[in-house]
């Protein structure tokens, strides 16, 4: 065997920890796709906004400096969610609502062509706007969490990634409970299942879509805030993640929140563990080999049968 047990366990741990952040990103994207059937090409760029929000709260403006270098970045990641939720609300109210929901139901492809163009446009605006506002210099949140770890035998668990894992599980769990057990969440799912029937039942579909869109980008922003503690970033960083997000969502089963979470986690595990047997350069290739295998053997995704929609 070309690797030791320690190597195996270390790669597995890294996969789970990295994958948890991917999982949260995928949940955000999964909500949007599940509720609105919109392929959001700007999702990675909203994540970038979350990274910068967390950065400015901790390092840039130092609003959370009083919390110190350990708690500050985690709280900032949480707060990035509501901030980007607000941005999401505005973008849906003034832009996305023109190409989604009841208003777009009669347009060609139910607004799908417009959605693709609008989200691509949003992506370009956010990237280049970010370049103007934040500059091109890569930046990051300076925290000891990024380079300190807990030791379990020979296995080292990065503290920042561990906290990120906990936050991801808590946020994803809370979102799942919100969508499945609250009246608002049920309304959102009803709007996703059948827009026309939902309207007849008195559900404000546009409002439900606005909630789904804002929640989706807000949750991905929390994931971005968590990643910002361990990676440096610049306004184009979203592109590196958006493909991973889509792969995770499709792997888990389009429209399934739980599926998106497990899909993201699986991608992290495959990405890190592939290095045990393959050259490191093929790390991301391994993701897509697994992706293609699952699509070939189970086109509906891992959780597709359990829940086709949110």
């Amino acid at each position: 065997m070309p690797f030791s047990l320690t190597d195996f366990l270390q790669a597995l741990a890294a996969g789970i920890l990295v994958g948890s952040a991917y999982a949260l990103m995928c949940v955000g994207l999964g909500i949007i796709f599940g509720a609105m059937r919109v392929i959001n090409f700007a999702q990675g760029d909203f994540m970038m906004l979350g990274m910068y929000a967390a950065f400015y709260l901790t390092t840039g403006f130092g609003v959370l400096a009083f919390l110190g270098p350990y708690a500050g970045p985690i709280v900032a990641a949480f707060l990035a969610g509501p901030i980007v939720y607000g941005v999401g609300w505005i973008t849906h109210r003034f832009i996305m609502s023109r190409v989604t929901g009841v208003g777009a139901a009669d347009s060609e492809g139910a607004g799908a062509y417009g959605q693709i163009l609008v989200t691509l446009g949003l992506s370009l605006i956010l990237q280049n706007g970010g370049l103007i506002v934040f500059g091109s210099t890569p930046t990051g949140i300076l925290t000891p969490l990024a380079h300190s770890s807990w030791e379990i035998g020979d296995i080292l668990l990065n503290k920042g990634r561990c906290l990120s894992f906990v936050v991801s599980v808590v946020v994803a769990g809370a979102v799942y409970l919100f969508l499945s057990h609250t009246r608002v969440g049920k309304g959102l799912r009803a709007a996703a299942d059948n827009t026309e029937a939902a309207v007849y039942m008195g559900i404000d579909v546009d409002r439900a879509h606005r909630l789904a869109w804002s929640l989706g980008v807000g949750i991905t922003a929390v994931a971005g805030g968590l990643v910002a503690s361990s990676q440096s970033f610049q306004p184009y960083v979203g592109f590196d993640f958006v493909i991973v997000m889509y792969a995770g969502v499709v792997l888990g089963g389009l429209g399934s929140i739980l599926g998106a979470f497990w899909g993201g986690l699986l991608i992290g595990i495959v990405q890190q563990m592939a290095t045990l047997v393959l050259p490191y350069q093929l790390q991301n290739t391994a993701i897509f080999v697994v992706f293609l295998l699952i699509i070939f053997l189970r086109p509906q995704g891992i959780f597709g049968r359990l829940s086709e929609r949110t």
Partner: protein
Amino acid sequence: MTTTPTRRAINAGLALAGARALGAIAVPGLGIASAAAQAKSVKIAMIAPLSGPWARQGQLLRMGAEMACDDINKAGGIAKLGGAKLNLVVADAGASTESAKDAAQRLIAQQPDLVGGFGSWLSSFTLAVTEVTERAQLPWLTLSYSDAITNRGFKFIFQTSPTADDQARNTLPTALDLAQKVTGKRPKTMGIIMDNTASPVSFVKPLLGGGIQKLGLKLLVNEVYTPPLSDATPLVEKVRSNRPDFLLLLTSAMPDCKLVLEKLDEFNLGKGKVPLVGNGAPFGVPELAKTIGTDLLEGLLFSVANWPMKGQEKFVADFKKRTGEPWVTQDGLCGYGHVQILKAALDSAGAADRLKVAAAIRAMDLTTGPAAACFPGPIKFDAKGRREDVPILFAQWQKGVPVTVFPSNLAVAKPFWPTV
């Protein structure tokens, strides 16, 4: 199907028509102004990444180039061309080789009066861009390292940096000598962590082709990744398992460098426990200190084509004052130097003609003057377009700043080998 124009469409149409009418009036005026300006200015081009992951490096290159243009123009412009001013035309290479090549094609098509240019920082970009500039017979300077740039038989490309092959051949022996001098013990084993962009690949080619064995070293770790890194755990785990005497780190992008350095520290291999030797300017950029912290960088030694040297104190002070940057890096220095080389070539050619400028660069042998002051060694190119007799520089992070430590005649501080 028939369509009825809406009020909005009619308004938009009217606005467009108005804009076109205004354009028709404005364009001839602009043309006259442009023609007048052309008589007194000479256009040179810079293609560098100004957006995307490498935008920062392009920005630094541009800072140096603009400073050089201002200095030259303030001092009276190109003397042999009646005091013509230098006009820098900047194009964004973007984030991919395709966008870099597109930028070059647009530039060549839209600016037929260019006399020379420089760029595009990343070797992969330069390889693409120079396919275009060579066809246009535009003399092109580059700081990119890859040997492939000047291995294609091109006549109009001039590489001001020592090639990756040269740097690879010189980096390790110099680092090993330094280790032996400081610790009394020559390292016996090494590891390599690198990305698969053109420059690191060129750099390790001679090492993996027998260079490492010739130096009496045993390679314990050899990991190549595709940037950007998502996590450096599996890479650094191999370093921890094999524990080489030192690690050769070849990361082109700063975010990857941060991940590896922080992971080394997390695995208790950082802060000199496994001495690090790097190659390339990204190891000395100011944002590295801001995002990693200087304690993790202390002692990191890296070879680089160009870095502020003894005798450049005034330039460094002026650059810092003008840009607000904490120190000058290879990119700012080369941006300044490339413009000065083009200026010297224009002065020598005595004509704003790209073929004559190219001939002047080929015949150049400068050891003094503003252009020569920007680079270690003379400004003299061989038939391939590579500079001759170029010493390799080493810089090292010392007390939060990367300073030139080798060769001693150009160094501003003494080197040390981390011992823990």
